[in-house]
């Protein structure tokens, strides 16, 4: 089995290389370069040219690419010309916020999906199931940003239960309990809004897995052994249906990336997604390329995780 995991991990290397080349080409295609915006336009063009030469900006593309990769590996993504600070620093603090938001969303997604999926699958074609599938159809149909706006309007502005922007109340001391609660409070509404929409595919997936597993012959065997219905469900149906859900986990991460871009902007939550959109509108190219690279990496790692989880939990793959 470890061979399988090693092989799967090795596959990510060419994936990452291709991603980095794409991102590099993207960066090169952007107008301007590392010097743009840093330098007073009144400086003599010859001086600029000398500077370019010194910084290696006139080297062939592959040399530049290797230099860029070296920099990225050391965490050097260049300078943000809007914020006048290193991109890595800028992203660093946003990344923590996005990680928390993603984690909260993931937990909520499963908290909603598992019970709903189980009820819907076990009691399929009852009114309860119809209500749940009805919800999933609405979830599929409703655009995330509109739904999030409605949530923000109702719970943030009208009812005032949650803060409407930011990631923590200003003035709270980091490390204190109040700080933690404030963080959580800021997190909850955006996470819930996203989870309510993204969870529907997991609900549907779990539902159809359960309905599928219910009709398997080994379920009849379990009954023939004298298992009670609850045991049949808990020991045989559920276990076997949750397995593909576990494998779905990695892809869930990929889905989150798209979600955070909308959500963070709507809720004014200072994370990577919010940074991404604002850097696009401000034409902050170095930040943009760094973020695209990170999002791409997250997607690759998500897919890797999925496959590794599946190979760990499914004996049919584990033992060959």
């Amino acid at each position, binding site marked *: 089995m470890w061979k399988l995991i090693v092989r799967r991990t090795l596959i990510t290397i060419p994936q990452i290389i291709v991603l980095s080349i794409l991102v590099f080409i993207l960066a090169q295609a952007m107008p301007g370069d590392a010097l743009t915006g840093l330098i007073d336009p009144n400086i003599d063009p010859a001086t600029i040219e000398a500077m370019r030469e010194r910084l290696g900006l006139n080297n062939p593309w592959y040399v530049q690419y290797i230099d860029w990769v070296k920099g990225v590996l050391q965490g050097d993504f260049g300078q943000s010309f809007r914020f006048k600070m290193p991109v890595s620093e800028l992203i660093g603090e946003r990344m923590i916020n996005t990680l928390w938001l993603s984690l909260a969303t993931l937990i909520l997604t499963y908290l909603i999906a598992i019970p709903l999926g189980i009820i819907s699958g076990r009691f399929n074609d009852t009114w309860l199931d119809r209500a749940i599938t009805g919800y999933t159809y609405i979830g599929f149909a409703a655009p995330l940003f509109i739904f999030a706006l409605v949530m923000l309007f109702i719970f943030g502005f009208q009812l005032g239960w949650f803060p409407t922007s930011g990631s923590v109340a200003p003035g709270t001391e980091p490390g204190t309990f109040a700080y933690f609660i404030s963080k959580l409070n800021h997190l909850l509404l955006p996470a819930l809004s996203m989870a309510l929409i993204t969870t529907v595919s997991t609900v549907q997936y779990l539902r159809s897995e359960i309905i599928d597993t219910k009709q398997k012959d080994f379920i009849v*065997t379990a009954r023939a052994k004298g298992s009670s219905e609850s045991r049949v469900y808990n020991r045989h149906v559920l276990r076997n249906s949750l397995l593909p859900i576990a494998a779905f986990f990695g892809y869930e991460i990929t889905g989150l990336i798209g979600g955070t871009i909308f959500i963070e902007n709507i809720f004014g939550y200072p994370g990577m997604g919010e940074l991404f959109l604002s850097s696009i509108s401000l034409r902050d190219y170095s930040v943009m390329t760094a973020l695209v690279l990170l999002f791409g990496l997250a997607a690759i790692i998500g897919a890797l995780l999925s496959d590794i989880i599946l190979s760990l939990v499914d004996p049919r793959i584990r033992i060959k």
Partner: protein
Amino acid sequence: MSEVLLDIKNLKTSFRIKDHHYAAVDDVTLTVKKNEVLAIVGESGSGKSAFAFSIMGLHTRAKIEGEINYKGSNLVQAGPNQMKKLRGKEMGMIFQDALSALNPLMVVGAQIDEAIFLHNPKSSKNLRKLQVINLLNQVGIPRPEKTYHQYPHELSGGMRQRIVIAMAISNQPELLIADEPTTALDVTIQSQILDLIKELKETIHAGIILITHDLGVVAEMADRVAVMYAGQIVEIADVYTLMENPQHPYTRSLLNSIPTLNDVKEELHVIQGVVPSLQNLPRTGCRFASRIPWIEESEHEASPELHEISPGHYVRCTCYKDFYFPEQAEEERNYVAN
């Protein structure tokens, strides 16, 4: 005469298809005795598997009427709790496709262990493990300790079927239902499994209901045989009578249509028409009539009954009396003409 274990009276199992109930098992009456192998023979759609599932109470969406009398209680009326206690303990079941009958995510040892645990929840884990190893030995698995920790997909078809059998006999059931236990297996493995079931019968003294379409398997295994067609029993007799002196046209046709090693026929008998589907079953008159159209309508009974033509030998409908195969008829006609 040995003791009656299971007494089934007028059993009717119907499935609902679009607002109508269609009986897949229609008015089946029979008994199963201790220590006997009762074979139920039929083609797909004859209702033989639906019959087995009805006894075990494994149908989730079927209407079951009639009586299944077991140890003084009627299982048709039994609640889920009573059935739960019987299933796997007093009634074991062996399935056709062992690969799909086993949970792919559990080691086979744990699956047998579950069967014991369910009926002895207070037993110790170590003791159960010993029992499982013993069972694996009993069903002829060469390295039980190793096999215990293997998953179904790691075993061969024959080994998997042995696991399913071990599971079915784990609580020394009094009734064992084997639903096409060897259909999915190679011939040499089939004979091993059949011999195993035979040997187990000697040790566990259970009544066995063997469901099969294979008349060779019947000849090897059965004490008594019930032939099912379109949800009904058309003939029931001890195995010698049935194989040597079959009466019902369906039984006779079936026996004539299989190629055997003993006598090489130039031509196999073909039963005309097709097995009717559940919705298209003829519900009145002789259900086999449409497949023997050369037999006059007057030969059939209006509502065919099982007739005891010799002790223990029952045949449905009166059409068996003057039944002949069409080829024979032609020969006879030629004979008269000459």
